[in-house]
């Protein structure tokens, strides 16, 4: 929206809005450096809770399980989700098409409790022991739908004649996909993977239903320890997680902005050369 002034009202609502979004996390970060076990009383700066966290094997094990599950499920979800996006955007008519697209979109709006319950009952019905594998299967299923949405939004705007040109010039369909299509949809595939990874890292409800005793993920561990109240170790853990995400998102946005600028420069240069 252009035109109109950026008024004091706009400035106030932005300031208050972002304060609301960020203050709670800021407070959490500050109190993670609190000496006292009482979370609400400030007793001086200390990093002792980070030390205790690093000695807590239960948390480290859970973190490792979470990363493993996240890596495998997001990788599988990226492959399956990209395929699904291709089917939805490109494959035209086939039997069961509307069922297929329904199944691709349904998990996006499905409450996690229902998905979790359904998958658990399914795993029990087929006699699959609950563990890392079942969490990976569960996460892959709902994350592939998110990947498919991200990738198909890129595929829709994709100029098909590029692919056709490659085919006309003698590429096999697979080569055309690898050397033309993939580089163009790569940013969407990468953001799909990142989204799937984040969703998996973040998921409590579905993981609680589908995990076994030996496969506690970090969110399950966090949830069971904060149910009883605030704990300084969890504050420290949260701070680490917030830090990683912040660095990641800021880097990603700088990289993508640079690319955009470079692309614009290239286009400008091409125009001037003509």
């Amino acid at each position, binding site marked *: 929206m252009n035109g109109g002034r950026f008024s004091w009202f706009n400035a106030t609502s932005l300031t208050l809005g972002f304060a609301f979004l960020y203050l709670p996390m800021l407070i959490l970060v500050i109190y993670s450096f609190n000496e006292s076990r009482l979370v609400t009383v400030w007793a001086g700066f200390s990093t002792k809770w980070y030390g205790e966290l690093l000695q807590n094997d239960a948390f480290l094990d859970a973190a490792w399980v979470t990363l493993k599950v996240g890596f495998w499920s997001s990788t599988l979800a990226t492959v399956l989700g990209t395929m699904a996006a291709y089917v939805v955007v490109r494959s035209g008519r086939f039997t069961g098409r509307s069922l297929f697209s329904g199944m691709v979109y349904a998990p996006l709006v499905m409450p996690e409790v229902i998905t979790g319950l359904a998958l658990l009952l399914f795993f029990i019905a087929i006699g699959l022991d609950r563990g890392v594998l079942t969490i990976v299967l569960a996460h892959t299923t709902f994350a592939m739908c998110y990947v498919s949405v991200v990738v198909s939004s890129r595929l829709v705007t994709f100029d098909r004649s590029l692919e056709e040109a490659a085919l006309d010039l003698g590429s096999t369909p697979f080569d055309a996909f690898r050397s033309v299509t993939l580089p163009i949809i790569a940013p969407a595939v990468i953001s799909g993977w990142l989204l799937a990874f984040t969703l998996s890292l973040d998921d409590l*409800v579905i993981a609680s239903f589908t995990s076994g005793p030996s496969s506690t993920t970090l969110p399950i561990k966090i949830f069971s320890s904060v149910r009883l109240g605030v704990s300084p170790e969890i504050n420290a853990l949260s701070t680490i997680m917030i830090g990683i995400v912040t660095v990641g998102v800021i880097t990603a946005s700088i990289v993508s902005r640079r690319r955009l600028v470079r692309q614009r420069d290239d286009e400008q240069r091409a125009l001037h050369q003509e």
Partner: protein
Amino acid sequence: MDLRRTFLIFVPFAWLLLLFLIPFGIVLKISLSDIALSIPPYTPQLDLSAGWSGIVEYFQALDLENYVFLTQDNLYFLAYMSSVQIAFISMVITLIVGYPIAYGMAKAPDHWRPTLMMLVILPFWTSFLIRVYAWMGILSQEGFLNQFLLWIGIIDTPLTILNTNWAVYIGIVYTYLPFMILPIYAALEKMDGSLMEAAEDLGCSQTSAFWLVTFPLSRPGVIAGCFLVFIPALGEVVIPSLLGGSQTLMIGKVLWEEFFSNRDWPVASAVAVILLLILVIPIVLFQRNEQKQREAGR
């Protein structure tokens, strides 16, 4: 038939059938079953060796008993109603909080916008659980908010916010705010600012120009945002568990407890089926709205 295309369709299709559709079939089936010994197997079991009569018997033994139980116990009805109410109130508050932010973003100078966008999206990448947890320390009796309010002298005694529905509203508004801001911002950003100027030139006050021009044009974003908050809020588990109290009834939490504490799987399944039926209405409305937008955009 092209083999490659068949493979491409078959793999994700089979995956979703196996891990999405069939599990729901199982939920539906178990919701109609009885507990044998509070653990599987549930009666009835399909006995294919008995042939056709086995199948008939199987279907005759399925009944709506669990659903009848849900209607008899007031708890479930109240939980459904209160979930809808909590989701609705939170949605309205999120709209009231989110709209001015989206509006401010759309009005902000061009070179600020990527940064503002990033600031809205960043919390979304941060763990949901942690963002809910952050409020536990803020809202408790001796928490940050009460200390602050006592310090500036608005209140004399600490307020009880944690473990009430108020904390649940705050939690939902906080965690789902980006879902409200982004679609509204997208709608406002597309808008032609000269329309506002035209309205003002023609004698509209700024306020009435907003209500007559800007707000109606942002309606698709508002509707999308409301659905994106309402639908997930309805089945929310984590927020009522951590921030709500014992009197906070939300159906997701009831299902969770029915399953993990009471171990009553058939009843949990019946709760899930009904939750799904309730959700179908807003989901269908939402998809119809999205489709209308897509067609209008063409």
